[in-house]
């Protein structure tokens, strides 16, 4: 009984290491192809549109509601200490450093990541990837790279839009609804928020963009070419991306604090 548990544990550790190794090899190949892929910028721009512009509605809506909730909760908390005029600072720091990159990345994984994975998975299942290979075209270079780079470029832009709309939502609730002074809201925020706070969020969103896009293209490209296989790849994309975003968020926060 005990030996069976140990064996199973060993197998699962081995499998995880193998999977990490495969991810690392794929990431190395993607990194090596990136400069050449950037030369075909038109293909990348198309994918920035697919991953970014088509995610705008969900990002803006979510940003607005997250900002509004932040306004309500922040006002409730700060009112207890008599410092509700600091609401702008609290909302801005929360959004720029944490909520903007993290929530935008989770939404990105759910919307654009799944779209990328299922698109590549379907291309595999319908022999389109094999056909591209048979036309002597490298599918990683032609199909995977533009999608990967599109995701990497779109993610920081989406996080920035999320934060800005979120800030507007916090202002809407704090100033228009709860009566915080508008001048105090903005001036305190401008005085307290520094460039490195914004850059922390930008750095996080770039890292999340790299990880979410890599997971999506890897899972889609390597999916089993069946309906079930594509479904599993899509699910794995959301799960792995979400966990990696939260894990990386902790690591980056710990490093940058």
């Amino acid at each position, binding site marked *: 009984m005990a030996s069976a548990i140990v064996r199973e544990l060993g197998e699962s550790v081995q499998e995880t290491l193998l999977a990490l190794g495969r991810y690392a090899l794929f990431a190395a190949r993607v990194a090596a192809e990136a400069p050449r892929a950037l030369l075909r910028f038109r293909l990348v721009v198309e994918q920035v549109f697919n991953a970014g512009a088509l995610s705008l509605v969900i990002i803006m809506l979510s940003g607005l509601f997250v900002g509004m909730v932040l306004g309500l909760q922040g006002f409730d908390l700060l009112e207890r200490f008599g410092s509700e005029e600091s609401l702008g600072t609290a909302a801005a720091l929360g959004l720029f450093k944490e909520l903007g990159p993290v929530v935008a990345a989770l939404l990105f994984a759910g919307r654009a990541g799944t779209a990328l994975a299922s698109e590549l998975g379907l*291309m595999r299942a*319908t*022999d*389109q990837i*094999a*056909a*591209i*290979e*048979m*036309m*002597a*075209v*490298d599918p990683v270079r*032609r199909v995977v790279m533009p999608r990967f780079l599109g995701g990497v470029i779109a993610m920081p832009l989406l996080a920035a839009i999320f934060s800005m709309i979120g800030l507007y939502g916090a202002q809407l609730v704090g100033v228009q609804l709860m009566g915080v002074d508008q001048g105090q809201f903005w001036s305190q925020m401008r005085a307290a928020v520094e460039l490195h706070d914004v850059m922390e969020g930008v750095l996080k969103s770039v890292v999340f963009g790299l990880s979410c896009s890599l997971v999506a293209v890897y899972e889609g490209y390597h999916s089993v070419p069946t309906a079930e296989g594509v479904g599993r790849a899509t699910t794995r994309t959301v799960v792995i991306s979400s966990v990696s975003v939260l894990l990386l968020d902790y690591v980056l926060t710990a490093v940058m604090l």
Partner: protein
Amino acid sequence: MGSRATAATKRPWSRPRPEGRCAGRRLAPGHSRGSDAIVRVRGLHYRAGGREIFAGVDLDFPRGAVTAVMGPSGSGKTTLLRLITGQARPERGTVEFDGQDVAKLGRRELYRMRRRMGMLFQNGALLTDFDVYENIAFPLREHARLPERLVRHLVLTKLQAVGLRGAARLMPAELSGGMARRVALARAIVMDPELLIYDEPFVGLDPISLGVVLRLIRRLNDTLGVTSIVVSHDVREITAVADCCHLLSAGRIIASGPPAEVAGSKHEDVRQFMHGLPDGPVAFDYPAPAYAEQVLRER
């Protein structure tokens, strides 16, 4: 439409051909004749999922001929194509394309070799984001920096060859199965390959589309001077256009030669396959315990 139906009825592709040999044919200018076989398979062993697919197969695909590879489902026909195109590597033995051992080629050399091949997949495998025109232009845009006017000329020429010039701006989702197969065929020939490979080109086609695809296989082979390999288990159809047949079963070649010769074989496995007999060496019943015994035990 009417003329197409008439052509299919008359079966112009099945005109008399020299029998008694798997002969090569006239080649188009620029296509080299290194040896008589463009693809040569020797001592091929291959396993997949623990199952032996090939156990010492020797095969030649004569230059300029239409060669059919037939066999029951699961006999390794598509795997053979994957080995020829370098999508899989043999466990033992060699697969040579024009004298080059495919398994020994690096990625760049493999892609160079594939530029000399065109492949028609079972479902067409058209790129669903692109319309018909862009699908055919795809290899040209990837491999050659040609002026748009020349690309247009080449694409329309190939579409005309498969009779679909009028469908240039349709999306793959708007095409019937037969049309998709013809568009894929136009894409396969757009780079003027030396070898055309067809993986189950007749699956799911209505009789008219089937006749059209059959006629195209023969006509393109003869007019372009290419070599064609057709994997299929549609015996009647493929033997009508093939110069040469190879019959695969249980990991081995059980018959090779001109279609008439293979069809007339006395070998039991060959007879069962060529004449579609429900029982024979390939049993109708999947191996199972005695029927009565199993029924009683389950009660």
